[in-house]
């Protein structure tokens, strides 16, 4: 056994930790973010300062944060999980009552130098607290009702607060990511089956009783659901975005119209083209090849995360990595389904691509946690 091999078996220390990070993941994340810079540059009509430069600056800050988080031992993060969750929860309560009203919804606290979005923080603190909980809990007890109820409450309480903001997209993400951690932790499939069955029967009930004297909702609430499910019923609102997004995507064809040549986005047909609908510009300018490559990059990131989770013998670390990956995955899935007209329009950004500082930084901090778990894994 050489000296080198001997050292590998130990947890690395000091600056040498950088060598033991999951470098493919760092490279992939940077690659996807770079595609985003390119698109933002193109959408602004070749102007760097509009969106691309601020986004790059935030990415740089986010990367520094990611490295910093990665250097801190994972056991520190585990012990901080409960505190972090509580802090995020209190901040959520504060926005509920003192938040600045922006875009019609109370979402952030203005600290002067930065706008804090507690719902963003909650995404990963929730995952942390769930991972810590299942790490603490005897695996034999995970499916006992009481021990199922606790994580459910941990998920549902902040979700309700976020829903009240109102922020449908983020609350959906919280539920999905939380449920995924529970699933991977080994909670009996019966619970998931029961919730699914209940949900389906509730939906069926709501719709079959429509028009009868026993209907659950008011008529106008049904109408809102209708436009939500079928945007073409509202051709000037949600439907407009979807029609234009599909034209942008479809007209991209196999290889696209070329960088900075997209007409749909250039002519301002696309709303939210630099945020939620940024994928349409990519697909229009780089075609199926570009769009599919991006999907491939995303799949690789998810793959490396899952492998890292499988490699890791620490239960907290595995669950944390899965939670971050699940979050990442659901954002991608919901956003892409939405812009490709497969799902109703929910305001959900495309991770690493959409313009927006808060989401980007939080995501990179999340990857920092993944790296920390990877660097400090038991060997």
């Amino acid at each position, binding site marked *: 056994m050489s000296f080198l091999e001997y050292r590998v078996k130990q947890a690395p220390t000091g600056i040498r930790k950088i060598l033991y990070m999951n470098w493919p993941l760092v490279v992939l994340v940077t690659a996807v973010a770079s595609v985003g810079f390119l698109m933002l540059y193109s959408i602004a009509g070749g102007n760097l300062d509009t969106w691309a430069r601020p986004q790059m600056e935030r990415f740089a800050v986010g990367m520094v944060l990611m490295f910093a988080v990665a250097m801190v031992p994972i056991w520190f993060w585990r012990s901080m999980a409960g505190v972090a969750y509580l802090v995020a929860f209190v901040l959520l309560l504060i926005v509920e009552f003192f938040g600045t009203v922006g875009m019609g919804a109370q979402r952030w606290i203005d600290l002067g130098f930065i706008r804090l979005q507690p719902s963003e923080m909650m995404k990963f603190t929730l995952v942390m607290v769930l991972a810590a909980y299942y790490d603490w809990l005897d695996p034999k007890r995970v499916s006992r009702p009481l021990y199922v109820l606790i994580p459910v409450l941990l998920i549902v309480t902040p979700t309700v607060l976020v829903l009240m903001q109102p922020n449908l997209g983020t609350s959906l993400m919280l539920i999905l990511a939380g449920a995924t951690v529970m699933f*991977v932790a*080994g909670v009996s499939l019966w619970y998931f089956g029961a919730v699914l069955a209940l949900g389906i029967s509730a939906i069926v009930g709501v719709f079959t009783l429509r028009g009868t004297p026993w209907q659950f909702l008011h008529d106008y609430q049904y109408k809102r659901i209708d436009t939500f499910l079928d945007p073409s019923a509202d*051709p000037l609102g949600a439907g407009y975005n979807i029609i234009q997004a*599909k034209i942008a*995507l*479809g007209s991209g064809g*196999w290889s696209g119209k070329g960088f900075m040549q997209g007409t749909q986005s250039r002519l301002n047909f696309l709303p939210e083209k630099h945020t939620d609908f940024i994928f349409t510009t990519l697909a229009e300018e780089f075609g*199926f090849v570009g769009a599919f490559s991006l999907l491939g990059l995303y799949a690789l990131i998810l793959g490396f995360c899952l492998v890292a989770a499988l490699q890791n013998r620490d239960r907290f670390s595995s669950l944390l990595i899965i939670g971050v990956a699940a979050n990442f995955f659901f954002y991608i*899935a919901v956003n892409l389904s939405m812009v*490709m007209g497969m799902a109703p329009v929910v305001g959900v950004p495309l991770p690493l691509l959409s313009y927006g500082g808060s989401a980007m930084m939080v995501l990179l901090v999340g990857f920092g946690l993944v790296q920390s778990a990877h660097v400090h894994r038991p060997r």
Partner: protein
Amino acid sequence: MKRTARDTEASNRTLNRRTLMLGGAMGAMVAVLGARMRYLQIDQADEFQLLAEENRINIRLIPPERGIIMDRNGKVIAGNEQNYRVVITREAAGDVDLVMRRLAAIIPMTAEEMQASIDEVKSLRAFVPVTVAERLTWEEFSKVAVNAPALPGVVPEVGQSRRYPLDTDFAHVVGYVGPVSEKDLEGLENPDPLLRIPKFQIGKIGVEKWMEDTLRGEAGTKRIEVNSAGRVMRELERQEGTPGLDIRLTIDADVQNFAQARLGSESAAVVVMDVTNGDIICCASSPSFDPNLFVRGISHADYAALTENDHRPLANKTVSGAYPPGSTFKMVTALAALEAGVATPETKVSCPGYIEFGERRFHCWKRSGHGTVRLGRSLSESCDVYYYEIAQKVGIDKIAEMGRRLGLGQRFDIPMSAITEGNMPDKAWKLERHKQEWRIGDTINASIGQGYVLTSPLQLAVMTARIASGRQIVPRLVRMVQDRELPVAEAPALDIAPEHLAAVRQGMYEVVNDEHGTAKSSRIVDPALVMAGKTGTSQVRNITKAEREAGVISNDQLPWNRRDHALFVGYAPYDNPRYAVSVVVEHGGGGSTAAAPIARDVILRALSDGLPPLDAYPSSQRGRIETMLKELPLRDPVTGKPPAPTET
């Protein structure tokens, strides 16, 4: 709680198994997303490419046609006319400043208007069309169309715009429309998308405002294809909107025009009401203004002229003006006393020209007094002392109660703006409003419609209609909505003894037809059209003791705004009432000289098909009346055009 190695092993196995399941699910979702990309970008690429490259789909709202407002016989009061206008869309124009400069060179447009339009275009979403010029002539419109290649994004359009052919006659009743303002949108939770169309016009006041929902209709949509320059290539799909509903008012436009002309330049109001069903036949307020000015956007100079005029042309005096009713209120006091049993029609009161109460002396308008007065003479000669005496016996609360029963002190639900409630004071009201006890002097003032009592011409007309019919008539302004006649419930009877009503009516008959009646010179001699009524003269100033001793200054010697208000209420025909009328002439002087003649002319106009018949007037007046009628600036009954200005 230490875990054994085996437990850890088992739980790790579960975790790994579940992680792999999750990975599988993620993989499946990625595959679905990839398949969808393939479908959109490869299978359907041609179709979408065509849509994106050749044409662009755009969705525009089609504003519905606004409902028309007509008079009771179908004469158009508010209609729609073709409006040639030019709209611009930013996404198609490219360089908005350049295009606007070119446009300004061929159609009239000031630099400020141009800048305002540019700012508006830039502030809105790129595909929203913005109206930059309206009401162009056909020549200007054609110029824009011919120069289309140099004006990308500019589209000449034909739209509808509101027009009020009877302009000044219905300015107060019908009001006008104007562009939606921020204020209009405030407080609307889910505003109609139509309101987001720039410069979309909605009702601002009057019937136009209060029946906005009925008149507006629902927007249609059209999906259109525009080429890369933004020009409309073809319409893909069109969903017609629903036009607004037409409304027929109860007002007779010809009577309204006559009344408006008859009032002339006086600051005055006339209301005529059908006593059988409450239909408002005429509701004229003078001076008036041209609502078409507001539709086009009124100039500062024109607006200043309207607001600075001391005759207040913008105010709708028929429903917004609150005046002391003066002696026209005496029927209320009389009926209250009769109903309370403190007086009969035969009760005698001696009038020495004043009564003294404590320190104060309350005068009758006739300094020498009326001698012994019964109900009949108290009305026909308008003796004040009679009412001072009986009011003290009956008390203010019963008088106020009778006033309310006859329609005073309340707001009627008709679609007009700024309807006043007036004021029907009683003890509780004064305590609450002025934190003071009601005093007997207040009752004495109120008994002859002075002091705190305030009424609008509409309320006075309702009061008269109720006395004439003995029923609780409620005013009505809308007769039909889109060919559907609105039902009128028969008004329930007033809870007043018929003999008391008859005694008061008899008094009102004598006011106009007795040789000592205050309005005898305004009598109608045609036996089938006889009018009954009551004059009123209400003070707007206090007459000091010193002035009274020196002799009251006559109205002619006072500045206009210190003169008395002249009032008259009446109905006709006396034996089979059809119409009730109320007239208020602000600072017009005496009710018998300034208000009663107007009331007679207008009610005769309402009772006859054309101009008032001359033989209804006393023979000595016919010559004068004929000249007066001939000189009235009436509209042509068919075309609705005002008379050509006569050369002087």
